[in-house]
């Protein structure tokens, strides 16, 4: 019994981080209808930036490394939108074009990281050590931290989207772009903002998971594939959907790994995805239509 609860808690921790990765992908898609295939490589980029600050060159504590990485990640997001995405938007096939171009960007980032940091794996020491035991259930402090930070960031994003005027503007753009521009919202600015937020969130996820998994230049594809499944399951463009789907799949994964082994995790996700899409083609919360 306690083991079952431990698996559940571990699944929820994993779900919280998946949520952090997926919610940015969904946010960008919701606002600008762009599927950013470089999302996974930006997750990796976050890990490397933090490694550079924490281990490689500066020996900062991890929390300070995260803080230092945030402006770099945000600037990368804005730059991607400005330099790569915006010029493509006026072309007729921009949806396919942006997919191809962000896919290319993923390769550039990965190979760039490989060039600068080498092909080997890196790791960052966790900022919390030890375990906590309660009623026979054992949890590592670091996992608790991951859970709290991830959920805190997702909560902050949701608060921003629902309770601030600028967050409302983001939702407005995702629901009706022309309507948004009619009330005076600068749509391009909103796109840039969503890219910045998205890269910051996935980058922080990459940093938080660096002490648990290792950082490697190609390590972003696993998380990207998972984020993609989460976003489609939750409903493209819905941050709420990404939130719910991330926890469902995180917990599902934990139990599958416990009973069947880790090789079965991805097949289980995809079966789940197929079943949900057969019943609800829009995904769990996919209600936004053009």
């Amino acid at each position, binding site marked *: 019994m306690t083991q079952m609860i431990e698996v559940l808690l571990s699944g929820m921790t994993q779900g919280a981080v998946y949520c952090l990765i997926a919610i940015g992908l969904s946010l960008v898609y919701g606002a600008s209808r762009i599927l950013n295939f470089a999302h996974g490589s930006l997750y990796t980029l976050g890990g490397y930036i933090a490694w550079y600050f924490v281990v490689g060159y500066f020996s900062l504590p991890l929390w300070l490394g995260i803080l230092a990485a945030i402006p770099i990640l945000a600037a990368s997001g804005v730059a991607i939108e400005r330099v790569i995405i915006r010029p493509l938007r006026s072309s007729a096939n921009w949806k396919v074009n942006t997919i191809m171009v962000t896919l290319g960007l993923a390769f550039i980032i990965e190979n760039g990281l490989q060039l600068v940091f080498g092909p080997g794996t890196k790791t960052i020491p966790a900022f919390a050590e030890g375990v906590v035991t309660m009623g026979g259930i054992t949890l590592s402090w670091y996992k608790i931290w991951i859970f709290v930070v991830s959920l805190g960031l997702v909560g902050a994003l949701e608060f921003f989207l629902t309770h601030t*005027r600028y967050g*409302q*503007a983001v*939702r*407005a753009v995702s*629901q*009706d772009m*022309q*309507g*948004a*521009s*009619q*009330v*005076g*919202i*600068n*749509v391009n600015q909103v796109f840039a903002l969503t890219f910045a937020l998205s890269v910051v969130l996935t980058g922080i996820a990459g940093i938080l998971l660096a002490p648990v998994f290792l950082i490697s230049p190609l390590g972003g594809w696993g998380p990207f594939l998972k984020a993609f499944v989460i976003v489609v399951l939750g409903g493209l463009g819905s941050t709420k959907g990404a939130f719910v789907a991330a926890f469902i799949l995180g917990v599902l994964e934990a139990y599958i790994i416990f009973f069947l082994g880790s090789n079965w995790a991805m097949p289980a996700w995809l079966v789940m995805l197929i079943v949900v899409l057969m019943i609800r083609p829009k995904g769990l919360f996919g*209600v*936004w239509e053009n």
Partner: protein
Amino acid sequence: MLEIRDINAGYGDFHILHDVSLDVAKGEMVAVVGANGHGKSTLLKAVCGIMPVTGGSIRFNGEDIEGRSAPHLVGRGLVYVAEDRRLFPDMTVLENLELGAFLPEARKMEKQNLERVFDLYPRLAERRGQLCRTLSGGEAQMVALGRGLMSNPTLLAIDEPSLGLAPNLTETMLRTVAALNRDGLTILIVEQSMALLRGMIDRVYFIEEGAVSAAEPNHVQEPL
């Protein structure tokens, strides 16, 4: 207040407006009337920065505005109310209205303007928490107009407010617009038929195949 000189506009190779000129003076209510597909909406969209102008000039309060984006023009007081409403479907009535006051200029007047909209349409006050996708056509049109007013316009450009409304709702809607005009708001309105606008407007332009001709409203024969 608004001076349009020889503007051209269209979608790609499809040329819609041909050298259109039009004036709206402060305090006026001016109508553009024409059949479907003759460029009424295109004209309004081009003026309000929703779609690009390919030639000619537009001046608004002395400023050259052709090529300016819609958000820039909203900040200057030139506000567009779309024929297809363009509401945010998964947001509440109140959120839609609040977003009308997104820019700092309108934000300062948000409280007064919200009161004004709720005075105009008590029904919107009752339904403030309702999602816009669940509203009826008439209510959606109220939100669209109310959101336009929230932007604190000096000139409100309204695109066919009667579209999709029952005749009695259309009449109420147009009376409301006329009342706003009497209170001092300058209005440029587009409609398919003169019939309902009689007695409300100062001047009318007819638009046919993308070209306009000016006319005095009281000396006009109803076009068939």
